[in-house]
């Protein structure tokens, strides 16, 4: 078999394993909610919308499925996959088991951008919350990147620690700014609304968000998957990676920017959803081991399914009320993480 054929074969085999699971999760996302809808109803709606089948379906049900639940499930999947992959990449690059996509200051910056637009009235109402969040995220990341560079993270040794420290400093600063703006300008209702957004919220998601989130998650995943072997080479640090032929600086820059961009976009669509980027990589590692060629797809799939499930739970757990999805991810994530930690410890020896 030629090398290209091997690659294509691996890709097809991976897709055959992952796609049915993903499709089932999205289907569940479309079925379950305050009103439960049968799977054949969901499939009929899909046939109508995608193939123009013209099957008889109640227009209300069709509206719920097509305009609300499907985009929601798809964005949840994209977001879960992107955050999980970003977590995998950052944990490997920074050689820190506690690294997650928000360690680059991104979620803190996004919150500041969001409150600057919605509460402080930046842009005079012409700017959307997600636009503010996206710019805030990039601004904070820029600040952290410059700070890390100035602190000497350009060199190889200790670079990882500098980035983590710069990220913490950046997060503190931007969180303080957010608190300042809220304290100065927000009324109680606004403060409540923004807190809701800060904990992650998928209820505003519509199709345009799908067209942004899904291609971005796919592109980000492909870039990261392409660097899987390079990430393996970071096992013993960046010097060791360099001695194995990895262009360390280029890989670091490409991957950190890719993860920063993925995270910034996801946060601007759904708010900051904690725990996924931290916990899913560890869970996936527990399932398939630390090798990045298997870890990358496993983390993406686990992240996607996990976030769809969390979204379902957030919609049905309190009847008539939607819980912020970040609350659910933390409530499920923290105990499962504890289980993984304890069991991982037991099998270690």
């Amino acid at each position: 078999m030629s090398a290209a054929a091997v690659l294509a074969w691996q890709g097809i085999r991976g897709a055959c394993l992952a796609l049915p699971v993903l499709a089932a999760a999205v289907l569940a996302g479309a079925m379950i909610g305050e009103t439960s809808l049968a799977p054949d109803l969901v499939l009929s709606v899909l046939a109508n919308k995608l193939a123009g089948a013209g099957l008889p379906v109640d227009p209300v049900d069709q509206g719920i499925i097509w305009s609300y639940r499907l985009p929601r499930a798809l964005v949840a999947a994209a977001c879960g996959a992107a955050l999980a992959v970003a977590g995998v990449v950052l944990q490997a690059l920074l050689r820190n088991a506690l690294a997650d996509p928000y360690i680059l200051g991104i979620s803190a910056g996004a919150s500041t951008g969001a409150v600057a637009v919605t509460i402080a009235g930046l842009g005079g109402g012409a700017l959307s919350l997600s636009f503010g969040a996206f710019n805030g995220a990039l601004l904070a990341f820029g600040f952290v990147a410059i700070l890390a560079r100035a602190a000497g993270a350009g060199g190889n040794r200790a670079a990882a620690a500098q980035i983590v420290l710069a990220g913490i400093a950046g997060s503190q600063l931007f969180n303080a700014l957010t608190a300042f703006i809220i304290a100065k300008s927000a009324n109680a209702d606004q403060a409540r609304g923004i807190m809701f957004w800060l904990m992650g919220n998928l209820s505003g998601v519509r199709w345009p968000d799908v067209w942004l989130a899904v291609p971005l998650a796919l592109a980000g995943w492909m870039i990261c998957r392409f660097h899987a072997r390079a990430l393996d080479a970071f096992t013993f640090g960046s010097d060791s990676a360099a001695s194995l032929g990895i262009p360390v600086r280029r890989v670091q820059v490409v991957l950190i920017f890719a993860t920063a961009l993925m995270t910034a976009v996801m946060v601007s669509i759904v708010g900051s959803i904690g725990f996924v980027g931290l916990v899913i990589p560890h869970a996936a590692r527990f399932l398939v081991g630390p090798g990045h060629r298997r870890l990358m797809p496993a983390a993406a799939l686990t992240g996607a399914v996990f976030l769809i499930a969390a979204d379902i739970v957030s919609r049905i757990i309190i009847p008539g009320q939607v819980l912020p999805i970040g609350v659910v991810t933390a409530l499920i994530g923290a105990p499962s993480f504890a289980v993984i930690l304890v069991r991982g410890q037991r099998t270690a020896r």
Partner: protein
Amino acid sequence: MRIEARNLSFSVRGKTLLQDVSLAVQPGETLALVGPNGSGKSTLMRLLSGLAKPSHGEVLLEDQPLARLTRREIAQRIAIVEQQADTAERITAQSVVELGRTPWLSALKPWSSEDTQLVDKALHTVEMEGFARREWATLSGGERQRLHIARALAQRPGLLLLDEPTNHLDIHHQLSILNCIRNLQVTTVVALHDLNQALTCDRVAVLSHGRLVACGAPSQALAPETVSEIFGIQARWVQDAEGAGPFLSFQLA
């Protein structure tokens, strides 16, 4: 593979760690690098492997400036085992050695049975076949050291740089690793603290305070006067009663 250092100097933040070091290692030769702690052995290794750029001078690999090769091209020619390299990843012994194949793999040249063979062979060379499935965290210091050496061997380099490869090793594995690298057809530079082990190499280079103070045949470079002065001890030759070559004996001055 021939490597040459020309007038290498290296300084960080105004502090000179290495000054005007010139030496050449011929194809197939094993050069021992000795010197007190902080004399610049590891620094010289990093310069020879291209991990650090010299402030002055240049490194030539097969008469080509090292600076002109890409990281990948260097890694296909030079393997280095650093003095310390640890990980918290729960990676298996086998995967550690497999990392050595990284410079030879690409998207279009994926892992093949040849790579598997080279990894198995390297594991065999360091007598670690039985540990292939073990996790890194469960291995002893010497076992980890031997895996790093196997990883470097799996890289199939023309030049092998080993920074104190025998620390952590028991005497059996010290002798077998040294024997193995002497028998390899690969040019080797090895930093050693055991001067009697350095005596068994083809040539010895002695570093002190970042300068090369002696370089040549082991018995000349490690003459008791040089050793005594540099390490601040008293050294003398001792004849082996069984008729093997003389060795160095030391006591505090």
